[in-house]
């Protein structure tokens, strides 16, 4: 294993160990995601029937909201114990630290989505099992794009004042393409006759977004995290 991969692994392992011991972020984020789904359902289900495409929209709004929460909490933990400074002081590649943090967030959000997607299928009668593979790709690519930008911004904001409110303010306008592509792609899959071509278009847009923003974040992490 080369040095870069080792550092990534250490960071992921550290975050996992801390999280497994308390399960604080996972349990709260997961419950929050379920609450968001229910809140939106109360607003958007009329006469016992959901409005058009509402399942896809609720899924992605829940991912965005719970993702913001998880990002904020993860870095709040680092700030609270002043461990981010220790991480940055370590003789390690800064981009490797970023990738480690990103993988930790992705793992967390992946677990949340493992509950969220079946819940949407259950509540809105969406064909999540029949469309499992394209849905997995869409949700995976969208979560990666969201988390790639989010991890960078959350890390940047660790030392800023009013970071709790600044993170969503910065993150949501930036991830509009992820939301549009995710919702439209998922809605195409949830139609009575799924439209694979449209879903594929949105998936390729998400993939392009992921590539550009992961590279840009790897590139920006070093200068913005240096005092």
């Amino acid at each position, binding site marked *: 294993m080369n040095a870069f991969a080792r550092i990534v692994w250490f960071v992921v392992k550290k975050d996992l160990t801390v999280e497994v011991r308390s399960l604080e972020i996972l349990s709260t984020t997961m419950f929050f995601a379920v609450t968001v789904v229910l809140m939106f359902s109360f607003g958007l289900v009329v006469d016992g029937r959901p409005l058009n495409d509402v399942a896809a929209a609720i899924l992605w709004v829940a991912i965005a909201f719970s993702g913001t929460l998880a990002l904020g909490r993860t870095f709040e933990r680092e700030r609270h114990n002043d461990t981010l400074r220790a991480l940055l002081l370590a003789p390690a590649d800064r981009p490797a630290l970023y990738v480690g943090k990103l993988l930790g967030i992705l793992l967390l959000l992946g677990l949340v989505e493992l509950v969220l997607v079946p819940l949407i299928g259950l509540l809105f009668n969406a064909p999540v099992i029949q469309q499992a593979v394209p849905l997995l790709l869409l949700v995976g690519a969208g979560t990666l794009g969201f988390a790639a930008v989010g991890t960078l911004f959350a890390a940047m904001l660790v030392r*800023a004042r009013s970071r709790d409110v600044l993170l969503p*303010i910065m993150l949501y306008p930036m991830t509009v393409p992820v939301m549009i*592509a995710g919702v439209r792609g998922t809605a195409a899959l949830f139609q009575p006759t799924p439209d694979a071509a449209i879903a594929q*278009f949105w998936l390729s847009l998400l993939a392009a*977004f992921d590539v*550009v923003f992961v590279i840009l974040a790897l590139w920006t992490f070093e200068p*913005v995290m240096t005092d």
Partner: protein
Amino acid sequence: MTRSMVVMMALAAGMFAVAPWMIDAAPYEATMGLVYKIYFFHMPSAWMFLTAAIVAGVASFRLLFLKRPRAEHWVTAAAELAVVFGAFTLVTGPLWARKAWGVWWVWDARLTSSLMLFMIFVAYLLLKKYGGPGSDKLGAGLALFGMANVPFIYVSVNYWRTFHPPTSVVPTLPVAMGIPLWYCVMAFTLLFVILLRLRARLEHQRARVEALYLAEDEA
């Protein structure tokens, strides 16, 4: 205040004073009537909005990767101008749309991407104001990401839905409409350059005053 600035300011003031007559002289547009004339201010301000976003992105790049600390002043100046011209664009656009399309707002590619870009720069100003120390670099990161994001927002919303008249109408305009349009573009560009330079100069001076205070404290 340099002499070139005084000359530019006088010229810009003169151009904006004459602009209403130029626009008044432009011919009537058959289907939209008088209301289309807002376009003579709408389009130049939209262009300056985009220019400001690009200037902010380039200055952020210089600050983050080439380690030019003074570039931060240009990011601030350009970001504020992006908010100013963005607000102007987003106010004049719906005024026109209400007449032309019958609604104030549609979820069109250009409209949505302009709104999102505007929001990114508002977020920048909020970050600068409430982010506390160290927020200049964060802001530069935000502006850089914002610039990289424009094509994505544009493509995604474009595929989603599009109503806005394409920019390709500009070269096809009749000369009588083209002249006032380009005149207004020039006036707005001049105004943009003046404001950008003044604002960046203010930031340079603020940084110098701060440096002097620090030197005083140490002495």
